[in-house]
């Protein structure tokens, strides 16, 4: 299945037509029913991943919005301390998968799941799991920056206040560390107590990242964190992801393949609710094993 770079690639005639990309998406759109030929293939998972210690283990995970199935039998593991990108066309389920990690999909009516996801070996969908505690172990950054209507400082320490931390000195120290971590300290240090909404769009998104890392989460989930930002702000956030690499496990959903190539160490390609291929980013872009991956990363559909 390996295509040499120079090979003439046949057009992806087998692929059904897809919706346009780049449009804002509030709810992950359930995929269309899948043609039979695709479900025959198990996901192509590169062997390099087996050597990595996993922090999140997804085992035969399926998710339904009512009768619509959004995720089909996904099995993969997210390596600890690495940046993993989820790519794929609109409606492929990558955001849904991301939101399954911190059970944010629970908020949507009529969501049903099968299979399991484990964080550090503990199943997160088990009956006794405290969702609040689970979410405290993860940070999340959203597509559109959403700083709370309070001061910059209060935004950053929100999670700490939730944990009952009210000592001024501790909060201040963590606020500084988080804002430095999010490369926002220099711009924000003189206005910590002014409204977070007075920041620019790119600054707001970095503030959201600072807020997400303040409580020192084990996993940082990013749902298209740059899609509403201009190129300069995007570059800053990407640099930031780079600098956070190693300290946090980061899972980033992106529409932008160049971005996935730039920031991630591992890339998973999803299509119509299925995991198609998953491997080291370089291999995924240079030597994709599946035809669909190749067609997508070369920009011929999606």
């Amino acid at each position: 299945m390996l295509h040499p770079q120079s090979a003439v690639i046949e057009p992806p005639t087998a692929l059904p037509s897809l919706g346009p990309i780049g449009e804002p998406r509030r709810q992950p759109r359930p995929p269309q029913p899948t043609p039979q030929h695709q479900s025959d293939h198990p996901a192509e998972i590169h062997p390099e991943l087996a050597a990595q210690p996993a922090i999140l283990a997804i085992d035969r995970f399926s998710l339904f919005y009512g009768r619509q199935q959004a995720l089909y039998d996904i099995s993969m593991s997210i390596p600890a301390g690495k940046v993993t990108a989820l790519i794929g066309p609109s409606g492929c389920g990558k955001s849904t998968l991301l939101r399954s990690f911190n059970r944010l999909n629970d908020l949507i009516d009529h969501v049903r799941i099968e299979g399991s996801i484990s964080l550090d070996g503990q199943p997160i969908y088990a009956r006794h799991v405290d969702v609040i505690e689970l979410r405290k172990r993860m940070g999340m950054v959203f597509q559109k920056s959403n700083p709370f209507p309070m001061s910059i400082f209060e935004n950053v320490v929100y999670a700490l206040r939730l944990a009952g931390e009210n000592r001024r000195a501790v909060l201040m120290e963590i606020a500084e560390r988080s804002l430095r971590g999010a490369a926002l300290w220099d711009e924000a240090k003189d206005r910590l107590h002014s409204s977070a909404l007075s920041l620019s769009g790119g600054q707001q998104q970095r503030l959201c990242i600072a807020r997400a890392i303040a409580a020192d989460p084990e996993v940082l989930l990013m749902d298209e964190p740059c899609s509403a930002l201009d190129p300069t702000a995007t570059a800053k956030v990407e640099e930031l992801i780079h600098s956070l690499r190693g300290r946090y496990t980061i899972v980033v959903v992106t529409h932008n393949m160049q971005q996935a190539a730039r920031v991630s160490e591992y890339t998973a390609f999803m299509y119509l609710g299925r995991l198609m291929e998953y491997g080291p980013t370089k291999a995924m872009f240079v030597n994709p094993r599946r035809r669909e991956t190749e067609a997508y990363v070369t920009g011929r559909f999606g």
Partner: protein
Amino acid sequence: MFRSFHNSLTRAQSKLMFGICALFTVIILGLLGLVAGYLVSIGVGSLSWSFFTELPTGRPESPGGMRHAIEGTVILIALASFVGIPLGLLVGIYLAEYSKEWWLAGPVRFIADVLAGVPSIVVGILGYELLVVPLGRYNGWAGAMALAFIMVPIVARTTEEMLRLVPNTYREASLALGATKARTILRVVVPAATGSIVTGVMLAVARVAGETAPLLFTALGSRLLTRNPNQPFPSLTVQVFTYATGPYPEQKRLAWAGILVLISLIFVLNLAIRYMARRPGIAS
């Protein structure tokens, strides 16, 4: 040629539309100015220091002031707000944030809409039956509760609408950090909508401040200065009604002044609360 003709036609249409809208805005503003100007021109003449400090004398030719009614109205509004605003806010929060979890929301919303449209005299009769008859006399509590009853549906529905405008990502961001739903609502959702909720609350306050009918059956009105809501209770609106429908020109003039004071009161209250509640709104 046709194309440019068409363009100029659409441009003319656009200008016409603007013209019509502007015209009617000016008409409405003009009417408002007319009412306010008329009120001020007549009312100011009757305003004097004694209006605020004196009580009714009972003599038609020199009727004294309306201190009792001003104080009475302020106390009635305060009591009504104390009950009506928290209740309305809580119902609004329930409707906007919790309604998915229970079947009760539909009926509550419907009833709130119906109540918001009930003529206030009906509320007065209700207050009479529930709080005047059992207590054996007209009293201030009944008046305040009748006003609160009018406030609740207004506050509840505006609160609900304003909370629904808060983008869902705010809730998700807070929940994703491990906040409980209650905390998310109190710390993030409600503050994000504070500005517009305050507007709704002020509308409700202004609405009840001008109510007369429910007070006629409940607080009744009084010519005495009282701060005891167990007794018949004075209010500007009822006092104005009494004077304005009476035969004495001096009292009629006092009624004009009373209306002017009432409107100024609402205006000042509005500004004050807006100033206090000034907070960053939702990012656009």
